[in-house]
């Protein structure tokens, strides 16, 4: 028990927590934006892979790091547009469309990687983002700018959702699209915009993995983080502030299990620690299931003129 407190007292631990949380924060915010508008986006897992690959490839090809991030966001936006076309334009099943995009984006990324680097044994690396030492704040100074971006996005998204007309429109189309249409707001336009923006953020979450957390692109890099974000959104009751909290909480347990593994202080097989994040996600879903106040129009396709 004392070792536990020792562990928690070390700043290294909290640095790791924040680092682990970053892609989760970004991914969860991205899903949140889509779902607030009433659309489930299961393409997140694939979009994160694509963002990781595309951003990294751009930087490997000589672009500056922030350009790589922009490329990742753009790739996310493109897949988001596809998802919007399928689910908003054609009113196809949101589940199947999202899964199809995950499969497609992942396959395209792996293909692109192999085409670009046919015969490598060790993954080629880039120079990732450096820590923000110029920032005097402890723990935060040992993070990269993308973490700062993630943290800033939380209040920004909160502001947009709750204090701008477009945010209100997004929330309305996710609750009662007929009401929005009846007040002169185009449901298709708003939903598409939200999906594209959310997917762009998901792309950035992927880029964090290759341009910040690590410095190369691996297969199975995302490893289910996208699905965890989908669970976290429910846990966060679709609110940006709670999303941050959920991501941090989750990262806390993830960092904890890593430390416990390493310290060797337990006889449990390491796999049980690795399982913890996924089990926690399921538990979180079950806990909030009863009282989850879903955006009321979530997953219901809207056909204009059909009442």
């Amino acid at each position, binding site marked *: 028990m004392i070792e536990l407190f020792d562990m928690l007292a070390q700043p290294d631990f909290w640095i790791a927590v924040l680092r682990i949380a970053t892609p989760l924060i970004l991914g969860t915010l991205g899903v949140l934006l889509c779902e607030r508008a009433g659309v489930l986006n299961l393409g997140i897992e694939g979009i994160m892979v694509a963002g990781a690959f595309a951003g990294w490839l751009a930087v490997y090809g000589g672009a500056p790091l922030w350009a790589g991030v922009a490329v990742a966001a753009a790739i996310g936006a493109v897949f988001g547009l596809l998802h919007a076309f399928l689910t908003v334009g054609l009113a196809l099943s949101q589940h199947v469309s999202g899964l199809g995009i995950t499969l497609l984006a992942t396959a395209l990324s792996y293909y692109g990687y192999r085409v670009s680097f046919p015969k490598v044994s060790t993954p080629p690396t880039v120079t990732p983002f450096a820590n923000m030492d110029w920032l005097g704040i402890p723990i935060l100074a040992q993070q990269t700018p993308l973490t700062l971006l993630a943290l800033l996005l939380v209040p920004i998204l909160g502001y947009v959702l709750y204090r701008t007309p477009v945010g209100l429109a997004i929330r309305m189309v996710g609750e009662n699209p007929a009401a929005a249409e009846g007040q002169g707001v185009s449901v298709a336009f708003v939903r598409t915009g939200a999906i594209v923006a959310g997917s762009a953020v998901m792309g950035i979450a992927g880029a964090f993995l290759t341009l910040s957390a690590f410095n190369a692109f691996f297969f199975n890099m995302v490893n289910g983080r996208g699905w965890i974000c989908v669970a976290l959104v429910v846990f966060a009751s679709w609110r940006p502030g709670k999303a941050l909290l959920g991501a941090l909480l989750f990262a806390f347990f993830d960092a904890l299990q890593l430390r416990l593994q390493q310290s060797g202080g337990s006889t449990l097989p390491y796999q*049980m620690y690795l399982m913890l994040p996924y089990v926690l996600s*399921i538990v979180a879903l079950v806990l909030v299931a009863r009282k989850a106040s879903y955006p009321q129009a979530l997953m219901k396709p809207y056909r204009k003129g059909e009442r």
Partner: protein
Amino acid sequence: MSMRLEKRATGSAAALLLAPIGAVLFTLLVSSVLVWWAGAAVTQTYGLLLKGGFGSVFALSETLTRAIPLILTGLAVTVAFKARLFNIGAEGQLYVGALAAVAVGGMHGGSGFDLPPMMLFALMLLASSLAGALLLLGPALLRARMGVDEVVTTLLLNFIVLLFVSMMLDGPMKDPTAMGWPQSVALLGDLELSKLVSQTRLHSGLIGACVLALLVWAMLKYTVFGFDIRAVGANARAAAFAGVPVTRTVVLTAMLSGALAGLAGAVEVAGRTSYVTLDMSPGYGYTGIVIAMLAALHPLGVVAASVFVAGMLVGADSMSRAVGVPTFIADVIVAASLIAVLVATLLTQYRVRWK
């Protein structure tokens, strides 16, 4: 500018059949861009792809071998989706089925149960089915009782199961003769499936898979339970009015679907690998979803779609060795086909109006 969907007055059966084919052709056209990016000649590449998948007895045997687990996971997904139960966990169900097969047929078969091989074989299959069924039962009950969406829960379970397999392979089910390589105890030789064509890997699991496809088709079409599944999936409210027990149907469907995926794991172990390893399934569970959608949720169509997809995957392996186009082209083709088929099928029912 906006689009608007208008239902077509008359559906057309021919269109429904042509839609998947047209979609696949469209996909091949689009993936030509990727082939070109890899610097290979398009027609040569596709030629090698087809030849590698279907062009020789050996190629065909490899393709059919690959198709076996796909047929089973495809059936698992088909049954579930027919009832509007989104089973995305076939991958995990496959692995627990494989573990159960080895647990009964490898470990205890060798050191515990004193049963004639036929009985042990049957027990093994039963254990695998049960393992898969129970794994999906959890998410199904969570949905029925607490309204928890089964998509995310089944997805997350996949990761948990894979870690569990790794744990088993490191510990209780470790193969003592493998010198550190993570694989399980081997299955008893008596329980291995016999080969259909000598000098190839094609095993009698193909017959079993095809028989199951027929059984699933017959079940859906000719049994009361099959009717219940179709009715609940199409219109749960009307089904309830007609007296169909909705919750019970969903739970039983979940168990059947999980069992089929679990059997996929058992058949892979008994027919192809003899061991459980961490990489024995390159995503068969997820590919099963694509196959189910390509087959438009028709059990017999699942067999055809499985052969197609397996052919793509096998063909890509040999094509890649020859031409240098990465094997992932097959995954791209398969994923893009899925989306294209969805769009094409929709267009047979609706017309798009642009304003």
